[in-house]
């Protein structure tokens, strides 16, 4: 039995699966059910100043792909629409009843120090374990100069983070928006402002679909739509990239990260941790399946860690991040080739047509619907292995190294190398 305990910037939890600040953590009723189901922690649905915001009716959109419902999920909801005092009282009761769990409170108030100084003691009084600054909400709040409107300006991120650190003893997590060109800038600002951790990603600005009968973007509110925030399995690759970039940045060494964006299973969580996260947060998967999925997540992570011999989270945290490099550091002399297991092949022809039409014409179609890789032509792009519907039928086989490792900077085609070669050649 592996030790699943996690620590994100001094906030401790019995396991790394936290519910992200969203409808699942909206009120005492849900949170109690979640913690009873075994979630390691919750980040309470973002609190704001009174009077509370109002939400529209019709709030979510989703992308179903090939039978996979909610492959991507989008919402146009705002922060909590309940009075501050109600939330505060509930948080207090929850923390009292679940002292071992991480109870973090998400906050979003106007970008003036007064507002922050006013709300922090109220929150601190609940006994919660920390706060998360919502600098990410990409819709509704950003138009009011909050949420991602702050998160997109590194100077504001640093400033608000500093106000919070100066006005509370609680650990401060800064939640980053992905709606920005370079995630490192707001992350570094948070680090400079004294953040105890960053969390990412918040949702991505999106229009999820169009109703072709009504001719409205979805979700539709009385015949009109607006952009929302995109999340769910579809955004995981984007989250992993941003997380990886922050985790490997030498200027932020030691900054704990709470990873999220499409985490739906223990495997996703393990990938986030391997890329450098100290723990993960989950929203869409819980909204899709209910709170009990955490038991599969805990069980799966535990069994995998036991099988791999990882005693605790720290033993594998960031291991993949070490191998996350710039393109220019990749070995240009590495070569891998597709191999088809003819016993498994069912002759669907998909590898052939994919390679023939869109790659390197390296899979021959022989009589009797036999498909064979032409080794000399294969560039090792992996396309065929991705399209093959049969598990393990096409494997990519690394070829024995015939030449020294060489990166782009060393390659003769690199402009700087060419510049040296060209004049000599001209002589």
């Amino acid at each position: 039995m592996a030790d699943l305990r996690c620590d994100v910037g001094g906030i401790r939890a019995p396991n790394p699966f936290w519910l992200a600040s969203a409808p699942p953590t909206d009120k005492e009723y849900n949170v109690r059910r979640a913690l009873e189901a075994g979630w390691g922690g919750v980040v309470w649905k973002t609190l704001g100043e009174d009077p509370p915001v109002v939400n529209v009716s019709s709030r979510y959109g989703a992308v179903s792909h090939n039978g996979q419902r909610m492959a991507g999920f989008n919402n146009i909801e705002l922060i909590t629409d309940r009075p501050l005092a109600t939330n505060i009282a509930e948080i207090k009761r929850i923390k009292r009843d679940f002292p071992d769990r991480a109870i973090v409170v998400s906050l979003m108030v106007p970008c003036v120090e007064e507002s922050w100084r006013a709300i922090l003691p109220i929150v601190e009084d609940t006994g919660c374990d920390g706060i998360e600054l919502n600098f990410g909400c990409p819709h509704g709040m950003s138009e009011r100069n909050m949420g991602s409107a702050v998160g997109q300006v590194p100077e504001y991120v640093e400033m608000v983070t500093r106000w919070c650190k100066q006005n509370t003893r609680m650990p401060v997590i800064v939640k980053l928006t992905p709606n920005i060109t370079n995630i490192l800038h707001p992350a570094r600002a948070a680090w400079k402002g004294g953040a105890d951790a960053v969390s990412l990603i918040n949702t991505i600005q999106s229009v999820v679909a169009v109703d072709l009968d009504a001719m409205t973007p979805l979700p539709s509110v009385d015949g009109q739509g607006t952009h929302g925030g995109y999340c769910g399995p579809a955004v995981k690759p984007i989250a992993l990239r941003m997380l990886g970039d922050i985790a490997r940045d030498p200027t932020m060494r030691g900054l704990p990260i709470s990873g999220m964006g499409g985490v739906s299973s223990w495997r996703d969580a393990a990938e986030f941790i391997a890329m450098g996260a100290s723990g993960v947060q989950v929203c869409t998967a819980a909204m899709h399946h209910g709170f009990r999925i955490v038991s599969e997540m805990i069980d799966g992570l535990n069994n995998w860690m036991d099988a791999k011999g990882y005693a605790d989270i720290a033993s594998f945290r960031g291991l993949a991040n070490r191998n996350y490099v710039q393109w220019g550091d990749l070995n240009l002399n590495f070569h891998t080739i597709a191999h088809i297991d003819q016993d498994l092949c069912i002759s669907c022809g998909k590898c052939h047509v994919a390679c023939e039409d869109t790659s390197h014409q390296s899979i021959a179609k022989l009589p009797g619907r036999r498909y064979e890789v032409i080794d000399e032509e294969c560039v090792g792009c992996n396309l065929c292995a991705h399209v093959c519907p049969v598990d393990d039928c096409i494997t990519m086989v690394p070829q024995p190294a015939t030449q020294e490792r060489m990166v782009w900077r060393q390659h003769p085609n690199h402009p700087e190398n060419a510049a040296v070669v060209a004049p000599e050649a001209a002589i």
Partner: protein
Amino acid sequence: MDGDRIRGGRLDQCGYAVAFSDAHPALTPTQARVEAERCYYCYDAPCIEACPTGIDIPGFIARIADGNLRGSAETILRSNIFGGSCARVCPTEILCEQACVRTAQENKPVVIGALQRHATDWQMRTGSQPFRRAPTTGRRVAVVGAGPAGLACAHRLAMHGHEVVVFEAKAKGGGLNEYGIAAYKLPDEFAQRELEFILGVGGIEVRHGQKLGEQVTLAALRAEYDAVFLGVGQGAVRALSLPAAGASAAGDAASLAGVLDAVDFIRALRQAEDKATVPVGDRVVVIGGGNTAVDAAMQAKRLGAAEVTIAYRRGPEHMSATGFEQDWARTSNIRIRYWSVPIALHGADGTVTGIEFETAGGARELEPADMVLKAVGQLFDPEPFGEILAISGGRIAVDSEGRTSLPMVYAGGDCTAGNDLTVVAVAEGRDAAEAIHRALTNAPATLPADATTAAPRPVRGMEKMANG
């Protein structure tokens, strides 16, 4: 000997309704979408090759998954205008679904037939026609027989703008779709509804009560029309002459009451408005090993026969009924006895009482029966053509274009050599129509691009199966 062992009214009305309702109900829209998404959209898909009419199967299935049922139906019907009945009657387990790569992968093919039905049902529900006729050519073609072969030929000729007159002996069109296929495969008057749909393209006149060799002659048709297509099926049945034996069986076994040809039994059942009026025995023995034998047995059982036995002279592997049909029979509580060669019929008072078999070891066994159905094969009756048309292997001889030995006379379907399946008859009728069209106009082999509102796709031809 009580006289009404063979009788109708064995079930209540509800019982008949259940017994003869759709054997394989339609997919729901959700089932269809989930199933359509199982299709890999194969390149050079083996299922297409296995379909005698060469339907673009991945193409029509992808259109179902896309929510484009109109395009899906049109893709099917363009290759096979009987797509609706084929979806219900094709032995897919030896055709497209056997070839489906998912059969190789997990022994669970994409259910192509059921998806085909989903799309074609949509088309028929709309009541609209997917195809437009080309401008009339002024050419006239006679088609003999309103079965799948004749109508597939007629439809394709009409689309090319030719005028078609179909000469049909019977009062109803549809051929064996109307008179032969098991009732639970084509319930709810499907054959007639499909016929109406097919004729809806226009340019086809069907004349009933016109039997070639009686009301019309081939010579007259050749004189009046630019071309003739023969799609007359197989009218005759192979004889099974068995001696009569037993106490008071007088003379001729064939005249024993309770001994019938299976196709006659099925025809009567298909045509009965009220299935309760169709008489069936208590103990029914069906002789034969093909799908007709299975169909007859299944329908006897559904009429309420207590015990139904199929007796086949050889082993399971030799039966021409597919494994799927054999299993279906067994799970319907039908006994199949193999290695049972019929030797003699037993009777009393002019009524059959049993049938005697010689078993594998040479032993004789008497199987009691009050009804015996003979399903030992249909035959082509060359009578009306024998003199003038070349016959080969007992059927009309044709070349790969469907041409008979007479100029501008074509033939296809069960009256020519090859697999006796609806889908094969359709392919042959369609391909003969293309050949006739080419001969009449020197036109290219494919449909004109403006035949439909959608983008044209080439029509896959099909080599004639094993010619005699």
